[in-house]
């Protein structure tokens, strides 16, 4: 019997939180328990030392018979069963912080042959791997659901559903949108897209200043358009009377950070959703030429704490990608060599934030491209392997951080932009946010369990939420 190798000790007032993320266990303990563990670590027999404590710590998997092994990096070939298409770099908005400079250097809409080949590939992979579902997504680049893209979108969705149904696979279609659409497009969306993520930054002044519409060479507010979309989505029902499945995501800037509670309250007033995604801005793309600035991490943490109190009052929750209690793993997201995202030009990237060939990090994330002659995708195995090897357990800076398996090394694009290395988050401004919010959440859950009989302290593991 030994101490689980990934055990973290976090001081909390005159007590400590013991956190064993790989074992899914957290405890609030007195200093005597820490002393006991120190004695066990120095070689004393844990059972003889204190039988009761031994039993409890074994039940909580702080003491284990065998250390949990982390899954090895496999050499399986890249065989995605989901694809996300970036149909265009064109955009009807000019968001002040757009990572992909949507609306600039637009080029052409994705060729249908690229979509067709990608869909054929994921279906072939799904059949080969014997999985029963495939996913199609649309994302930016620019705004994927522009009316001008309709022929492409219609083709991709119909071809996907038909091929999936022929293969006996469950198929779902998702999209991210800025929400500025005419009625024809809105009708198309609710008929064709199973799940939509709507980007909206908050009340009118925030939305209009951060996400302006580009119309006739001028920047004008987008608030009324997005509200019209939101109202439509809220009112939409399927034949069973079920409401339309959509989510809302706000980018929090230095200008809006102090209003996070207000944003949550606003979202709650306009939507029946029970969870809202609030992500701090990372300065890249158009931030270089606009006044948009990231919030200071301490401000984001402070106002997120306030917003979480407000959310609790309202019976809703807030999602932030770097500090989830319900996701434990070694990879932050599918950018680690799993995603199959296709740019309008047919290049394959694993990261949406690196979707321009001229991006200085394209060499790290561009894992392949479409061969228009042979109508198939070619993949660069060594680039994929390099991404697959980016696991938090291989990142020395994170070695002793209690949040490591929750933030999973954090966002690859942000980490590499700040340090020049995928594996070095030493300059990552989100570390403090991730640690602070995770500690808050652990403390809150543990406080809620104090004085409860042990049997009632066994919480149901939370259900998995959406990806970042």
């Amino acid at each position, binding site marked *: 019997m030994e101490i689980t190798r990934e055990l973290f000790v976090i001081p909390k007032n005159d007590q400590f939180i013991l956190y064993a993320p790989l074992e899914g266990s957290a405890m609030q303990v007195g200093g005597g328990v820490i002393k006991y563990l120190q004695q066990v670590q120095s070689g004393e027999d844990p059972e003889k030392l204190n039988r009761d404590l031994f039993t409890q710590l074994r039940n909580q998997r702080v003491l284990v018979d065998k250390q949990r092994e982390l899954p090895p990096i496999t050499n399986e070939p890249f065989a995605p069963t989901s694809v996300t298409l970036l149909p265009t770099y064109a955009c009807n908005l000019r968001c002040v912080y757009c990572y992909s400079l949507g609306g600039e250097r637009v080029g052409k809409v994705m060729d249908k042959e690229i979509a067709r080949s990608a869909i054929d590939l994921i279906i072939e992979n799904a059949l080969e791997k014997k999985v029963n579902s495939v996913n199609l997504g649309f994302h930016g680049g620019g705004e994927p659901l522009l009316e*001008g893209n309709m022929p492409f979108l219609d083709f991709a969705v119909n071809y996907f559903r038909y091929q999936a149904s022929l293969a006996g696979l469950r198929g779902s279609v998702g999209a991210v949108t800025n929400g500025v659409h005419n009625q024809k497009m809105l009708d198309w969306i609710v008929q064709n897209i199973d799940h939509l993520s709507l980007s909206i930054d908050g009340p009118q002044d925030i939305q209009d200043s951060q996400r302006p519409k580009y119309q006739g060479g001028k920047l004008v507010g987008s608030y009324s358009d997005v509200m019209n979309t939101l109202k439509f989505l809220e009112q939409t029902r399927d034949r069973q009377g079920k409401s339309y499945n959509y989510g809302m995501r706000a980018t929090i800037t230095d200008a809006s950070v102090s209003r996070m509670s207000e944003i949550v309250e606003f979202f709650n007033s306009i939507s029946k959703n029970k969870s809202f995604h609030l992500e701090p801005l990372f300065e890249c793309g158009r931030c270089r030429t606009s006044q948009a600035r990231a919030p200071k991490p301490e401000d984001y943490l402070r106002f997120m704490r306030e917003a979480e109190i407000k959310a609790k009052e309202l019976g809703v929750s807030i999602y932030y990608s770097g500090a989830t209690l319900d996701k434990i793993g070694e990879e932050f997201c599918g950018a680690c060599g799993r995603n199959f995202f296709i740019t309008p030009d047919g290049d394959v990237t694993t990261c949406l934030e690196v979707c321009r060939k001229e991006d200085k990090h394209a060499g790290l994330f561009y894992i392949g491209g479409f061969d228009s002659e042979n109508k198939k995708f070619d993949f660069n195995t060594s680039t994929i392997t390099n991404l697959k090897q980016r696991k938090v357990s291989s990142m020395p800076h994170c070695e002793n951080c209690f949040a490591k398996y929750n933030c999973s090394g954090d966002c690859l694009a942000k980490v590499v932009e700040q340090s020049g290395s995928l594996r070095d988050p030493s300059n990552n401004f989100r570390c403090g946010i991730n640690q602070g919010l995770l500690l808050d959440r652990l403390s809150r859950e543990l406080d809620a369990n104090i004085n409860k009989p042990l049997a009632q302290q066994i919480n149901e593991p939370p259900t998995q939420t959406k990806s970042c």
Partner: protein
Amino acid sequence: MSLQLKQNLVNMKYSTKPSYRLPKTSTEGRNAITSTLQLRTFSERTDERTFCFFHKDSCSPECSCDSEKSCTCNTQKKESCSHCFCDNDCRCESACSCDDNSCNDCGPFESGCYCDSAGRICKSD
């Protein structure tokens, strides 16, 4: 509490390497576990999505495009197309839109747009 590991999370020293391991220095305090929490155990994190399945029963997928640029729907030719693509109802793809509105999607350094077989293309100055 005399722990070397104590860190000031409020000030957040991002550049310092955090350490939250079992301390070497001795601690005092109660030998008690006051609260426990069971969380999700380790699993390989996946890019799971929560999109629900939407069955589009109005779909007419037997529609296909042939070399004569005609829409063929359930073996019956429907119409000739200027673009080799058929829509959901086995109608030919409509020509892309190049009115002022759609050209607004082009970038600030582009003078307008035109359509070709690949769809709408923005023109550079």
